[in-house]
């Protein structure tokens, strides 16, 4: 049916070039040599010259390899049997179980018509006070977790995967250390959460090109689940590795780099993935949490920077805690009005006071005299860190709000805590 081509003219990096006719842009091809074969994708057409990006890497590819064009783009099999399964970046099972026999669905499909989107309406409860109270996660939201290598972002994601109140979890690993992959698998298995999870994992040892497909596979599957009325949470780690893979390919392709070697379309590429987060009016939803490491703790690095503009807020993970400054859930105001009357005001006030505490700390470290108010702030800061910021704390939203009031009462008089009078009357702890 399909013409077979022999003879590859150029091999540069992971890109092969051969001459072929009637090839569609973005189509897949199967490259076979000896006993091996690998998928490849058309990334450029120039007259008869066809440029193919080979998934398994070009090492060992001979110039007389056989290339067969499949006549369609990248697809992924989809059915409910995906739950509990683990795949690699090109969709091959990693769990020693058979390939999934299901109808394939296209990957990286068209984006959702903005006029069909709805205002976010439901919060995703995670049981982590720094998220639920201060930066509520909302269905259809996309949020990155900015952190430095070495911060416990993977354990945090794993905990969210266990605790989050959603139907399906899809975990995408990009350039994941093998140990981290095992950690995720074991944690989810132990807690019995694997049965509601699908994992697409590209480990650091796998070919770079496969890393590029992980987000697309995850999101294509997530979209299908969401259309079947499921609330889906997609966890991606680590998006910086993904961007680096894009950079690697772009530079091999001799594209003009824009910032620090990253391709000029980094923003559009990241956005196309993150924008898959959606709440379908008559079906389910997709929420995305993506760990993004900041090289050198630099938030102005192109990857976290572009991400920050795309996502609806961000979490900063620093010193093992979700940092209250800078962390922001831009959608929280859609849901925290309906949680409890004090939610909004108290979260703002707590952060303002914590900011005041930080500057007092600065003052103290420089040896200045502390005023009475300063010592109140110091006490407040300590309590805040122990009772709410500590990542080990698991509290329901309502309990966490009560804890806020208790902390305020322990440290301040009711008229100096800066809360509106009507809320003080209602919520100030009585005894």
């Amino acid at each position, binding site marked *: 049916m399909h013409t077979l081509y022999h003879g590859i003219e150029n091999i540069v990096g992971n890109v092969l070039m051969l001459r072929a006719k*009637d*090839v569609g*842009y*973005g189509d897949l091809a199967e490259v076979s040599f000896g006993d091996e074969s690998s998928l490849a994708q058309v990334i*450029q*057409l*120039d007259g*008869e010259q066809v440029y193919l990006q080979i998934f398994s890497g070009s090492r060992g590819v001979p110039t007389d390899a056989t290339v067969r064009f499949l006549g369609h*783009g990248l697809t992924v099999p989809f059915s409910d049997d995906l739950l509990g399964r683990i795949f690699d970046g090109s969709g091959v099972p990693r769990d020693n179980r058979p390939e999934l026999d299901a109808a394939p669905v296209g990957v990286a*499909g*068209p*984006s*959702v*018509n*903005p*006029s*069909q*989107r*709805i205002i976010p309406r439901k919060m995703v409860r995670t049981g982590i006070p720094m998220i639920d109270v201060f930066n509520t996660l909302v269905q*259809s*939201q996309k949020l990155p977790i900015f952190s430095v290598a070495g911060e416990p972002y993977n354990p945090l994601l794993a905990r969210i995967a266990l605790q989050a109140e959603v139907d399906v979890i899809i975990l995408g690993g990009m350039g994941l250390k093998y140990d981290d992959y095992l950690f995720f698998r074991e944690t989810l298995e132990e807690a019995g959460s694997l049965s509601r999870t699908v994992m697409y994992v590209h480990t650091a040892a796998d070919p770079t090109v496969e890393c590029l497909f992980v987000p697309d596979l995850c999101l294509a599957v997530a979209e299908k689940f969401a*259309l079947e009325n499921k609330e889906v949470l997609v966890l991606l780690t680590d998006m910086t590795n993904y961007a680096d893979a894009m950079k690697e390919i772009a530079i091999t392709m001799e*594209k*003009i780099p*824009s*910032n620090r070697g990253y*391709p*000029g*379309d980094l*923003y*559009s590429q990241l*956005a*196309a993935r*993150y924008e*898959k987060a959606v709440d379908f009016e008559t079906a389910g939803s997709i929420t995305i949490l993506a760990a993004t490491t900041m090289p050198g703790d630099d*938030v102005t*690095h*192109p990857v976290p*920077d*572009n991400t*920050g*503009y795309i996502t*609806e*807020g*961000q979490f900063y993970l620093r010193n093992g805690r979700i940092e209250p400054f*800078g962390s*922001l859930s831009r*959608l929280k*105001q859609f849901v925290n009005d309906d949680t409890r009357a004090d939610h*909004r005001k108290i979260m*703002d006030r707590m952060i303002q006071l914590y*900011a005041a505490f930080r500057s007092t700390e*600065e*003052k103290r470290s*420089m040896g200045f*005299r502390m*005023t009475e*108010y300063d010592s109140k702030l110091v006490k407040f800061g300590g309590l805040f860190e122990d009772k709410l910021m500590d990542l080990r704390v698991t509290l329901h939203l309502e309990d966490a709000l009560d804890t806020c009031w208790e902390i305020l009462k322990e440290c301040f008089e009711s*008229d100096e805590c*800066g809360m509106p009078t009507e809320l003080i009357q209602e919520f100030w702890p009585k005894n």
Partner: protein
Amino acid sequence: MSETKTRTSTGTIDGVNGNLIRVTFPEAVMQNEVGYAVINNLKLKAEIVRIRGRQCWLQVFEDTAGLKVGDPVEFSGELLSVELGPGLLKSVYDGLQNPLPELAEQCGYFLERGQYIDGLDRTAKWDFTPSVKAGDLVEAGESVGTVPEGMFTHRIMVPFDWRGKFTVKEISAAQTCTVDTVIAKVADSAGELRDIKLYQSWPVKKAITAFDERLRPTENMTTQVRILDTFFPVAKGGTYCIPGPFGAGKTVLQQITSRRADVDIVIVAACGERAGEVVETLREFPELEDPRTGKSLMERTLIICNTSSMPVASREASVYTGVTIAEYYRQMGLNVLMLADSTSRWAQALRELSGRLEEIPGEEAFPAYLETVIANFYERAGLVRLKDGTIGSVTIGGTVSPAGGNFEEPVTQSTLKVVGAFHGLSRERSDQRRYPSIDPLESWSKYPSLVDPEKLDQTRRGLREGRDVEQMMKVVGEEGTAMPDFVMYLKAEFLDEVYLQQDAFHDVDGASSAERQTHVFSIIHQILTTPLTFKTRDNARQEFLRWQQIAKDWNRIPMESPEFKTAEEKLLAAVEACRSTGEEK
């Protein structure tokens, strides 16, 4: 310009690279002509961006997956244009003027490629009333009649690109008709007849200049945001930019402006930003009441929505589509505000294209012509006197998303050169939850404020001095700060807390009318200029915290309510109690 027949031809694809295709063409084509790449009976819209010999390069406004070498490309003989006529308002368009809700009816949740719908509904009926009679002389931009569109009187104008005077030969009587109906026939100087319909097309990248003259913008465009209207005002017909790092509240500020701004029509061009933000506007506006007219806010709004995951090439087109429609309504003597969020994404679209064309990159790989393109865009704003003497304006507000929050980057710098007001957002302030997080010391505006300029200068100086004291205090500590300096610091802090900051989500505090701002500002100014004395620094701080509480409550009371006056008196009395008698020292 007057030729109506279009020249069409067909070429073949010779190469595909991302959204750029190389096409061999047999006959003449023109730069920026629209062509359609044909794949499986789908036509993908594209625009010529470069011509070399017998080959031209087109940027495709859609996903190019599946295109093959040898596939045909149909050239349309036209530039990228929008339809201008009644029915634009309340619409939600993509960057190429396809109505998104109608697309959804056809395709469901997703934006399938190759689907195009007329920008104006061909079936909608409009009540046309003529305003000229046979024999009258008209020229481009003058109206021949009107139709009511919501709360506006929509002028039907002689197409803007027609040169010279025209004699009205036939004019329709008052009738109900569709946009396609010919309502007048006019003759040019050579006696050749031309048709005027309810709508006309206009190439988006060209400014509409069918007016008498441009005027200097001076009248304040109230946004009900205190820090803007009082400190960094924007004039009708002016331009401003809001650069800020991510998370600093650019979009919230844009949304507030789009709701409260004192203009007739608001055009929101969501350009390469999150879809979620547009949705808020989309879903909330129909329910919100326009305080000026009592009608739904959507009646005066038009949304151009080319969000970040939609094709990059139409992102570039979307700001032009927006500003063209803004200019069109300006031609009816209306004040139009066009908000572009974000111009950086638009600049990035230019960069992506420039990279694919392998042009020599400028700073940060942006094309060398970036500055010219930005300047040309902002220059399409302006206050103009139309040919019939009425005044119309287009105000442009663009957000800028500088890489790394660093204002030194090319897009911010090119923008700052051409705008009249700069509302710089600061991460520091947003981290401290001081909203709106406009930096009160770095921002500037060249337009006149609502309040007395002298008092304003005095207040600004106080703010700056207070901040200086704060910086100094970080080094020498509170005890090393003299009492007058300390009070200066507290005063600046007070101004910041109760006037510069504003709770956007509170009904009363969020919308501070011009009248309220003038009044509250005079009271705040009075407090700030009151000489004060305190026993200790702690005592001073406590007093100020107490006043802040009173003033913040005061901000949340409607101005008409009797409690407003009570709170004001309470505040002034509290301050008065600490007035220095001048005998202390």
